[in-house]
Structure formats: C-alpha cells, structure tokens
C-alpha cells in the first residue's frame, strides 16, 4: 500500500506566492518595455520575458523542478520539435530572397 511519503513534495505557500508576485511583476515589465523603442530588440525582450514567465510556471506551478528526468525530457522535446518546425520552415522564407540576388 502506498505510503504517504509517495504522494510527492509539497511546496511551501511562500514559494507559490513569491512566484505569483514575480509573474505579475514581469507582466508589468513587459508592458512597460514595449513602450521603449529598442528597435529590433523589442521582440527579443518581449520573448525573453515571456520565456522566463513560462519557465517559472513550468518549473514551479507544474512542478517540473521536482519531476522525473523523463518528464523533463518530454518538456524539452516539446521545445525542440517546435524549434524544428519554426527554424526549418524559416530556412525557406529567409533564403528565398537570397536566390534573387544571384541573378
């Protein structure tokens, strides 16, 4: 019979509230940064902040931090395949302009 010890780690209330505060703060930051002209870096900053927020949600709220190695692999795999889809599709779009330069 399963012992209570098997029921998984219980995170502290403080931690959850702290992550929550951090997420709200980051949301505020990303909105503010959007009004500053950083040229092409606006999107970079926005995506970096979104990725930090996403990682916080995954690591703490979804308990990825204390999950099995297999679960981590699944999470990383999702990003890897998304990367394949986006990057290989973009190889076509980005380099289409190159071919015209050759003429």
């Amino acid at each position: 019979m399963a012992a209570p010890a098997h029921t998984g780690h219980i995170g502290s209330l403080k931690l959850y509230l702290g992550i929550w505060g951090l997420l709200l703060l980051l949301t505020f930051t990303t909105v503010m940064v959007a009004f500053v002209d950083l040229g092409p870096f606006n999107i970079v900053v926005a995506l970096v902040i979104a990725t930090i927020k996403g990682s916080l949600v995954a690591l703490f709220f979804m308990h990825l931090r204390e999950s099995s190695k297999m679960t981590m692999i699944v999470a990383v795999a999702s990003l890897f395949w998304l990367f394949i889809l986006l990057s290989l599709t973009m190889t076509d779009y980005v380099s289409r302009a190159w071919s015209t330069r050759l003429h």
Partner: protein
Amino acid sequence: MATSDIQIAEHALQHHFADMEQQRETASFGMWAFLLTEVMFFGGMFCAYLVYRAAYYQAFVQGSQRMDLLAGAVNTAVLICSSLTMALAVRAAKMGKSKTVVTFLLITILFAFAFLVIKGFEYHGHWVDHQFPGPNFHFEPLKGPAVDPLHTEIFFSLYWVMTGLHALHVIVGIMLITWLVTVILRGRVSAHYYNPVDTVGLYWHFVDLVWIYLFPLFYLISKQHGS
C-alpha cells in the same frame, strides 16, 4: 480518516497498475505527453504567425495598435492568478484538505470566467469595428504608413484563430475543473489519490503558458510607433 483515505485509494487503483505510485506517475506522464501534442498544435499557428510577421511587419504593427492593451494585460494577470489558485489547489490536495481544494478550484473557475468575459468584450469591440476577417473586414490604420488591408486581415485572422482556440482551451478547462469539483465532493480524492487534481492542474497551467506567449505577440508589437 486515515483508513477511509486508504479505502479511497484502493478503490481508485485500476486493475492494471501494480501500485498507487505507478498509477500516479503514469497519469502525470500521460498528461505531459498530451501537453507535448498541445505545444505542437499551437506550434503550427505560431509558425504561421512567424512567417507573416516577418513578411508583413508594418501591417502587424498597425493591427497590434488596435488591440486593447489594458484588457490584454489584465487578462494576463487574471490567468496568472488562476494559475496560482490552481497550484494552491493541487498543494491542498496533496495535503488531503478536500474543502480547501474545492475552494481554490472554485476561485480558479471564477478567474477563468473573468478571463472569458474580458476576452468577450474585446472580441465584441473588434467585431463592431469590422476587424473580423472575411467579406466585412475593414481596417483604418491609426497611424503610420499605409499598409495593404489584406495583410492586416491576416494579422486579425491569426489573432482570432489563435486566441479563439486558446479561449476554447479555457472553456474546456472550466469544464474539467467543474468535473473535478464534483469528483472531490463525492469524496473520490484523498491525499493518497489526487491524480485528477494533478493532471487537470497541469492542463490549466499550460493554458496559462500559451497566453503568456500570445500576449506579447499580439498586444505588444512595437507600441512606440503608435504613441
């Protein structure tokens, strides 16, 4: 109390699992694998977004200026709050506090509805302004260079499809949480068996995660050009 907990757990152990631990890990792993599918599901649309944003950047800037930034930001906060309450619900479930779980789940549902209501007002605004793709689409840029309205229409197509499918996920989430509440009220969940809370929680956090990306991609494209 402890014995009834174990009885609940015995009842919940399906015949093909060796023990509760295997069953719990299997359920959680299954949900993660499902989220893998979900990532790719939204991934196809993110791919389309990337391609057209690169091609029609100005149109995307101008489309983005028509987004209600305040509503988007508030909605982001609302979903983050709902994520917190969901995380707390899972935490309470692990501790076996059924009543607290139900309370947090109900608050989560409230946040979810709040999100949908705000989103609904936004949708209504876009609809009234003819910013719904199709024959009635009409777009006047606020500021900046003239762009092909067809390209802003693509921006709005992606906006409606992506946020629409996200909203659909929110609705499914509400249904799942409601189901969860009934399951808990019927006393089927205990500190020994909280798989349903755990897996629904994972799903709900994923819904939040998608929005965390949708928000900057639609609401925050180069605000400074418009202000």
